[in-house]
């Protein structure tokens, strides 16, 4: 949010001049953005559902109602706050990127999104009518708003999704409007009033948002059942490096589960050898070397456990923890080669 508002002011002129090249890129990323917006919409929907339940006014009946002129009319008071961004379409990309990442990064991120959704409705209903009057006052909170407008422009030539989203936003904004009387919501309005100076205030705005958010809106947790499918899957990203480490053969030696040659004597493994798994740890070796080891100390080179003396399953279940720990260590030594 902070960065948004900082960027919002100076960029527009420059962005508008070098438009043609940028437009292409914008269109290309429109799909992606639509996806993100969808996510935000879902997020919004469930949030408002929660809010409506908790709100004292109890206006459940209208919470998901289709947008009506009346609803839009209630938003009028918000208009002037948003108009500043009308001309700044092209830096919407920038804003949107930072904005869309906020749900995962900052606790107040959801609120930033919230704000933008609300404002967007206001300005879109008013179109370009609300002119120059308070463009400066919108400094802080218009950033998200710009984003949505930008998307509006893109979506028009991409698909018809926008109407849906717009209508939804209207409905949501209506809810929000009605909730403002609720004791915990005033901060939503405050930032708009105090944001006329730009960056310094927008920071405080972000701060002021927090208490409001701590009430009933929070970022999605990875395990949240209501988390929109379209949000990037964090757990998946986090687990990316893991496949390397995953043990294929049931043990740390698994990655080398099909070595082309015996690690002991360096002779090629034949078919019989490759189907031979003498130890639960997954350390493979050729039958010759295995036999030779059996004749000596009879311990697996991979884990130093005696070969096949006891039923392997019991041994593994009893010693599971220490076994794997030790294996991992010796494994790493080997795998470097």
């Amino acid at each position, binding site marked *: 949010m902070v960065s948004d508002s900082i960027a919002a002011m100076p960029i527009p002129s420059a962005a508008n001049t070098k438009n043609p090249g940028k437009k292409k890129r914008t269109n290309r990323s429109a799909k992606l953005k639509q996806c993100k917006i969808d996510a935000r919409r879902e997020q919004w929907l469930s949030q408002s559902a929660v809010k409506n339940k908790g709100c004292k006014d109890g206006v459940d009946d209208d919470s998901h109602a289709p947008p009506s002129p009346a609803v839009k009319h209630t938003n009028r008071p918000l208009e002037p706050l948003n108009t500043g961004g009308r001309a700044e379409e092209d830096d919407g990309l920038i804003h949107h990127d930072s904005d869309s990442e906020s749900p995962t990064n900052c606790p107040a991120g959801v609120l930033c999104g919230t704000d933008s959704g609300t404002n967007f409705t206001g300005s879109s209903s008013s179109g370009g009518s609300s002119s120059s009057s308070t463009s400066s006052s919108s400094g802080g909170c218009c950033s998200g708003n710009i984003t949505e407008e930008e998307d509006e422009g893109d979506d028009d030539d991409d698909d018809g999704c926008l109407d849906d989203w717009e209508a939804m936003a209207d409905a949501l904004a209506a809810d929000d409007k009605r909730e403002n009387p609720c004791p915990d919501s005033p901060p939503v309005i405050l930032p708009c009033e105090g944001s006329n100076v730009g960056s310094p205030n927008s920071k405080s705005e972000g701060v002021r948002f927090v208490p409001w958010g701590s009430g009933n809106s929070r970022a999605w947790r990875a395990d949240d059942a209501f988390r929109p499918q379209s949000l990037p899957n964090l757990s998946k990203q986090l687990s990316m490096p893991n496949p390397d480490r995953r043990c294929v053969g049931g043990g740390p030696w698994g990655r080398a589960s099909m070595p082309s040659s015996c690690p002991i004597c360096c002779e090629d493994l034949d078919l019989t050898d490759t189907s031979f798994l003498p130890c639960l740890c997954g350390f493979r070796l050729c039958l*010759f070397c295995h036999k030779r*080891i059996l*004749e000596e100390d009879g311990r697996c*080179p991979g884990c130093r456990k005696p070969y*096949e003396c006891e039923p392997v399953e019991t041994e593994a279940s009893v010693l599971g923890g220490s076994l794997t720990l030790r294996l991992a260590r010796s494994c790493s030594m080997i795998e*470097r080669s």
Partner: protein
Amino acid sequence: MEVRYNPAAAADNSSDHLRPPASSKHPLPSPHPVDTSAVSKRLQKELMALMMSGGDLGVSAFPDGESIFTWIGTIEGGKGTQYEGLSYKLSLRFPLDYPFKPPQVKFETMCFHPNVDQFGNICLDILQDKWSSAYDCRTILLSIQSLLEEPNLESPLNSYAAALWNDKEDYRRMVHKQYFAGEALES
């Protein structure tokens, strides 16, 4: 040598009688025909692996002279340790039944260390009872390298070094003193 038996038979063995009496089946346990070609094959492969990657890790080794069973290795002292900037020479002698038996590894450069005696013998479990045929020259050298900065003070060969270990200043001085004394002796 012997006929290869298939794994199914081996598995049967193990499940039928819990301990396959390998020794009773082959009453002559140890006189393995010395298969030097197999050992040299393995050693050559180790050498290749070491030349490919060992240098980055501060360890290196190369056969000493004609025989591939005797190597000279070098270990750089780890950065930030008492041994930083010092380079130690070691000799590795691989037995004919390598890798089923560990190689004999000795410091050739004088090394002041709790687990190294005045003759350069190293007290390191993986070179004795903890040896595994899955280890190789590279892992040995890396183990010794890490032994330098993490001595086992429980069973010191050089008790003076063990006693001095906590006195970083004096320990470092002794390390350098012995290192350069050894170098002077060599040249």
